[in-house]
């Protein structure tokens, strides 16, 4: 009796298509992991890197394939729609670029590559799953996969005390925050009797939100706020980013954040989290202000970019503070677009930083960047483009993203938040400008060795530059996707006919 029941419950083929990217990435991750001890270390950088890259590309292809099969899978735990496809694409693309840029980094830093690439791929699995999961349990596990992978990645520069410190801080605080998140999940479960987002939504539809739900939301905000580095939970960011390897920072400042934003979007808009407005408002304002102000006097480029990532989280949060549903749709697409634009420019920036850092990441202070405009004009120009995008100067994705977010905010009549935001973006311009200033307007005091740009890094840069410019000049396609996603997300969740909904307490009949 059990066996047939089991078979009955085993998911159908289409279910697997709906997690195909995850499967593909995991498979490649395992291949990398298995091959690692087999291959000579000298070869492993290239070979394993290429396999990982192939995995990421395959992940992109499978995402494309998956996009043809929208719907729910695995007992309504995974939802494939434009929204999740968008984040799949984004996160896997980030991973691909990071892998590309890591070829050189791994070799220069003499880091064993096998685990690194496998961890990137596995981490990516967690992140993409976060974006498509609609079951809090699954979200939690996916979140942990992505978090643990990044904790480890942060500690990969093993000879450097700061790297392990970064890893430790990230790990302890991350777990601390995860506990809050988990507590929130528990209280949601307590408040609604379910952990499936769609069901929670249905449950909450026609009755006032219980007080417990407010507490639950508060705790979830703490956890997710930590993951996206929103003030006042941003505090770990500078230390961790400073110590972690540069490409990893590029990765973890964008991909897990994108995933966390995806979760936050689901939590905020699908569950229609009560009482969120002022929290998000304050968090947005605080993040922007603290991030920008903190960055003003930084001299370490990685740390500076860490503060900037706090500020950018703030800009993204501005778009969260929409209340009515028509504004929500703009807000959601603004978040999504901003995430993509931020990914393009920030990954690019960290790729350049990792290259300039040289062995042991020796050259990461502003002083080291003096005169780079002359010694390494192409990289300096590229970094300038990314920095301009971070400032929000036209023709870059950063500009349009900011523009879009603020236009959404004004549409929702968030006038003060918009003003705080635009003023912040003006102040923020100062510290990005400082990097440009030292690169171009100062002469090098000591000669800093600059490596030749390797092919992988060059390709990574080209992709980042292209993406930054594409999002700035022709944002239409991406915007359309984001807007479609917003529609999908906001549409009331309907049970997928292919996998019949089961009551959450199905097993209780045994009792």
């Amino acid at each position: 009796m059990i066996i047939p029941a089991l078979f009955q419950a085993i998911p159908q083929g289409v279910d697997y298509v709906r997690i195909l990217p995850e499967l593909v990435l995991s498979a490649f991750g395992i291949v990398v992991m298995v091959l690692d001890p087999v291959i000579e270390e000298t070869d492993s950088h290239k070979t394993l890197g290429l396999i990982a890259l192939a995995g990421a590309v395959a992940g992109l292809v499978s995402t494309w394939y998956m996009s043809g099969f929208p719907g729910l899978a695995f007992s309504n735990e995974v939802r494939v729609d434009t929204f999740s496809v968008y984040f799949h694409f984004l996160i896997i693309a980030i991973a691909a670029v990071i892998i590309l840029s890591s070829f050189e980094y791994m070799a220069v830093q003499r880091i064993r590559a096998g685990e690194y690439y496998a961890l990137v791929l596995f981490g990516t699995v967690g992140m993409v799953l976060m974006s498509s999961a609609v079951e809090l349990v699954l979200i939690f596990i996916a979140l942990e996969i992505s978090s643990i992978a990044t904790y480890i990645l942060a500690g990969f520069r093993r000879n450097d005390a700061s790297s392990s410190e970064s890893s430790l801080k990230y790990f302890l605080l991350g777990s601390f925050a995860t506990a809050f998140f988990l507590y929130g999940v528990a209280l949601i479960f307590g408040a609604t009797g379910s952990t499936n987002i769609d069901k929670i939504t249905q449950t909450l539809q026609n009755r006032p939100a219980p007080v417990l739900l407010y507490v639950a939301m508060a705790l979830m905000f703490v956890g997710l706020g930590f993951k996206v580095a929103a003030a006042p939970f941003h505090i770990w960011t500078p230390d961790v980013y400073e110590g972690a390897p540069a490409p990893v920072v590029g990765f973890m400042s964008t991909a897990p954040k994108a995933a966390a934003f995806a979760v936050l979007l689901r939590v905020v808009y699908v569950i229609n989290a009560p009482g969120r407005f002022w929290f998000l408002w304050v968090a947005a304002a605080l993040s922007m202000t603290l991030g920008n102000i903190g960055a003003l006097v930084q001299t370490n480029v990685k740390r500076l970019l860490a503060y900037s990532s706090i500020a950018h989280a703030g800009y993204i949060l501005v778009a969260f503070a929409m209340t009515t549903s028509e504004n929500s749709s703009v807000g959601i697409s603004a978040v999504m677009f901003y995430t993509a634009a931020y990914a393009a420019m920030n990954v690019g920036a960290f790729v350049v930083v990792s290259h300039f850092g040289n062995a042991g990441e020796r050259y990461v202070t502003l002083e080291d960047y003096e005169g780079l405009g002359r010694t390494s004009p192409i990289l300096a120009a590229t970094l300038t483009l990314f920095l301009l995008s971070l400032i929000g100067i036209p023709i870059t994705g950063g500009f349009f993203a900011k523009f879009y977010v603020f236009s959404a905010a004004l549409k929702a009549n968030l006038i003060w938040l918009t003003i705080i935001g635009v003023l912040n973006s003006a102040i923020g311009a100062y510290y990005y400008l400082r990097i440009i200033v030292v690169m171009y307007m100062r002469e090098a005091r000591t000669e800093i060795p600059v490596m030749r740009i390797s092919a992988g890094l060059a390709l990574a840069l080209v992709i980042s530059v292209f993406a930054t410019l594409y999002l700035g000049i022709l944002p239409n396609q991406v915007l359309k996707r984001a807007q479609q996603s917003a529609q999908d997300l906001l549409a009331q969740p309907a049970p997928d006919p292919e996998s019949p909904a089961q009551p959450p307490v199905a097993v209780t009949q045994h009792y």
Partner: protein
Amino acid sequence: MSVHLILFLAFGAVAVAGAINLLAQTHPINSALSLIAVMAALAGEYLLLGAEFVAAVQVIVYAGAIMVLFVFVIMLLNAGVEERTKGSRVAILFGVPGMLLGSLLVTWVVLRYSGTEAVPAGALPGAPRTIGTLLFHEFLLPFEITSILILVAIMGAVVLASKPPTVAPGAPIRRVD
């Protein structure tokens, strides 16, 4: 006062006492032992709630496996008595009051709003079999994906705990023009 309540209070008392002892002890081994006590007491609470499987796992996995790992590491690193360094005013000035405020508020909300209806002892029998069915039905994907999690953890442990390469990263690489 039913037996049920007495048992609840007893286990609860042990758990809280263990937790406080964890904080109070200065040697990590003592803290670890206190934590084991907490976990054991919680396993008792789980049993009261009918969660047999969970209670068992709590003892085997948590108290057994995980805490052993802790103790092992404590011994490995030869961790001694904690120094009472003054590293953080913030934690004391903001953190602890914040924690107190938060937990008081949550307690108040829980007492006031979560309903006072009693949970009968063994209200929901969580036998391993039913749990297993659930795991392979509804929670198949999380269950499977957990393997990835464990894979990651293993790899991480291997990478981080192994001795770092003795070869430091090479000297700065110069532009080859």
